[in-house]
């Protein structure tokens, strides 16, 4: 905090710039002993001349969970006072101009800000940044220079998100290099760095909760806007790494659905990448890398939605369909072939529908050599719109697999592709919809149906 956070935070276009445009209170949760130590730092005098400083010394020996608890208390205080809340960790370094841009975003009416950062090795990076000034000096670091420092001291916790890496870790992030110029950073979801707590309710880990739309957010996509380095000891969390397993779209999808990480806006956040660059950018290589990143993240988003659908089917007499979904998702090119970005309706045959198939018919779809058939079957049960329910009259839907579903709804009942069908249940998995039906609705060349099942 003394050597990197405050010297970079107090650079002219950071906290001083924000303080010129808004009333700022800097709250420090610490122990009474450390309060005295902090107040004795030469840089503290600069801080207290720039903004109002308030110490919270309610615990003498706080445990590791206290900082989360305290931040939530602090959010409640800000809410009561009608203030914006900013998360300013002590073990970070800021690029010059980050906080002036915070003021810009707030003045533009944004309710929250999410920014990218790189984790760096504290043992090597901190001395390098501290050496840029004398004790008590402010240290302005331009964003390009800070990105360069970040890549130089990159922590393996960050580089393990490199998609071509050897070892990975459970991750919400993926990174790509743009040789000689920087890094493309993608997150499934990002913590909120600043927000209006009267309008935004954050999750436990400061992700965006309910009650807002992606348009309410300023999501930083360029390190020149806002950027930060976060220090971590080299050997931190070593047992978390996945040896000989680079990060995959499925990893991101699974991790994003962990209860601590899942948010209503995850897919919207995931679509926005960030360019972390040293200086001027050559557009062609950046766009080339971004296309690769888009494809990778696109698969992660599809897999996330498929996992949500699979989870919603649990306990609904759809065990056979669930099984096919899990095999299709992990052993076929389902996510790659899913060329649609938006809500879908999934027609899921229930277990009774499987009884109509010829013996071994559905099991045969599991075979390696049946992969393309399984893929076609799966995609032909998905239409790229949220169908209006209840069905009325006639409608034709093209499926993601190139097939068609013809709907005839009349007082006499529902027919799908000409066969009498019962809509057993509708499940909402926003923005998607699941329709559980009691029969198969696809081409019999892909999966043979018993003759008796046609008598409708």
């Amino acid at each position, binding site marked *: 905090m003394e*050597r990197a956070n405050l010297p970079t935070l107090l650079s002219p276009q950071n906290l001083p710039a924000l303080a010129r445009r808004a009333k700022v209170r800097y709250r420090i949760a610490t122990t009474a002993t450390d309060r005295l130590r902090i107040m004795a730092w030469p840089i503290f005098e600069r801080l207290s001349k720039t903004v109002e400083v308030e110490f919270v010394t309610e615990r003498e020996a706080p445990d590791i969970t206290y900082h989360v608890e305290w931040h939530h208390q602090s959010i409640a205080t800000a809410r009561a006072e009608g203030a914006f809340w900013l998360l300013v960790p002590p073990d970070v370094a800021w690029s010059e101009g980050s906080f002036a841009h915070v003021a810009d975003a707030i003045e533009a009416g944004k309710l929250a800000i999410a920014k990218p950062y790189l984790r760096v*090795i*504290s*043992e*090597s*990076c*901190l*001395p390098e940044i*501290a050496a840029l000034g004398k004790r008590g000096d402010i240290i302005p670091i331009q964003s390009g220079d800070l990105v*360069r*420092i970040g*890549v*130089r*001291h*990159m922590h*393996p916790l960050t*580089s*393990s998100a*490199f998609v*071509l*890496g*050897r*070892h*990975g870790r*459970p991750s919400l992030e993926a990174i790509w*290099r743009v*040789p*000689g*110029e920087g890094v493309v950073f993608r997150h499934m979801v990002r913590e909120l760095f600043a927000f209006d707590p009267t309008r935004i309710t954050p999750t436990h880990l400061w992700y965006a909760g309910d009650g807002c739309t992606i348009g309410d957010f300023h999501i930083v996509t360029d390190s020149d806007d806002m950027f930060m380095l976060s220090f971590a000891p*080299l*050997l931190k969390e*070593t*047992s*978390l*790494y*996945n*040896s000989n*397993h680079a990060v*995959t779209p499925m*990893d991101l999808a*699974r*991790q994003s*659905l*962990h209860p601590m990480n899942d948010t209503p806006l995850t897919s919207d956040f995931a679509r926005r990448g960030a360019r972390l660059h*040293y200086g001027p950018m050559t557009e062609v290589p950046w766009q080339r890398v971004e296309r690769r990143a888009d494809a990778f993240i696109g698969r992660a988003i599809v897999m996330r939605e498929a*996992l949500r659908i*699979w*989870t919603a089917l649990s306990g609904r007499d759809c065990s056979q369909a*669930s*099984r096919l979904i*899990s*095999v299709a*998702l*992990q*052993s076929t090119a389902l996510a790659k072939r899913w060329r649609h970005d938006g809500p879908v309706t999934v027609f899921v045959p229930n277990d009774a529908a499987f009884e109509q198939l010829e013996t071994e018919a559905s*099991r045969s779809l*599991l*075979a*390696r050599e049946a992969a393309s058939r399984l893929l076609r079957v799966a995609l032909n049960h998905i239409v790229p719109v949220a169908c209006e329910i209840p069905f009325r009259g006639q409608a034709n839907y093209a499926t993601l697999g190139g097939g068609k579903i013809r709907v005839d709804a009349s007082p006499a009942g529902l027919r799908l592709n000409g066969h009498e069908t019962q809509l057993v249940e509708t499940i909402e998995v926003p923005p998607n919809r699941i329709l559980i039906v009691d029969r198969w609705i696809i081409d019999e060349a892909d999966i043979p149906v018993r003759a008796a099942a046609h008598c409708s």
Partner: protein
Amino acid sequence: MHVGKSDSFLSDALVLAWQMLAQNDADSPPYDDAGEFSLLGDRYHQLLSLDLAEPLPIEEAVRHARAAAVAFFRAGVVRHKLLLLQEIMERFDAKGDVGDPPPVLSDRAGKFAYSDSHKDAAERHYAAAVALAPDFAEALYNLAVLARASGDREKALRLFRLAAGARPHPGAKPHSHFVANALWNVATLQRELGLVDAAIDSYMRALNLLDNFGVHHLELATFLHDLGRLDEAAMHYERIMPYSHLYAAEFVEPNYAEDERQPLDPAGNPLSPFAATMIQKIDGRGCIYYWWHLYLLVPHGSRPIDAATLERSWLSVETSLVDVPLRRVRRWRTSWRLRAATSLEALHHQIGMPGR
């Protein structure tokens, strides 16, 4: 200053064990198979006996050897972790070009601060641990992990089997799932070696202990799928749909017993394994320094310590106690290790960090 293990006998024993292993260092890896583990153990006990005024009861000697084994194991884990981190950075580094700043972890830690490779050092330390305690399950496991990474599947298979059959440390943490992981690795290696039935059997034994192996579980689903065991494959694909993490067992260290812990500083914090720290004076002989979880007896050590002093002391104690002519290459390696240690120590002081 508190010293977690104040027994000077143990300190001496560790110094000697370290020196003994260092002798092997220049020529060849200090072990190759169980025979050499046993040979090293014998040599360790011989050296132990030479240094004692009177022989220890067997039970006592075994206890000390066990504690020494833990010290070596922990030294190995540190280097093994650094190996992993360095490998993570290497791929990232390889995709950069001249305009990119070289990451310090592959640039400095790999090529400057350590004269030997992390892999060699980790392997050497684990081998020492196994030499001192041949049934040290965690050390066998970690040696197996390194053997597998080197592509020596048969050796890795042997070691994982030994690890699965050995008794885990009494303080093993539940989330290490140590035996399950060892069996899973046995299964994976058997699969890679084409031993299909044995692999299936080992996978099932592993699954009896733990039902989900995180990201690695996909390999079983795929294996069964390839074999045409469709229902079982589907069951495993389905099992791994939700998020489940498996910790790297090689880095989930046990809760060590009191006499296996690192020395503590006056505030009760463990001393940094990276910094050479004086922890005990021995009248007429010098000081014991703690470094890399090892204890170095430095005659007439002076403070503040510097690389040259420690290096001279190290060389003299090695010569006087073991009376073995030093090879130039070993002297050079030792010198670099000491410089690395003291520079890291200086770094820790400079940035005001606690030892760990």
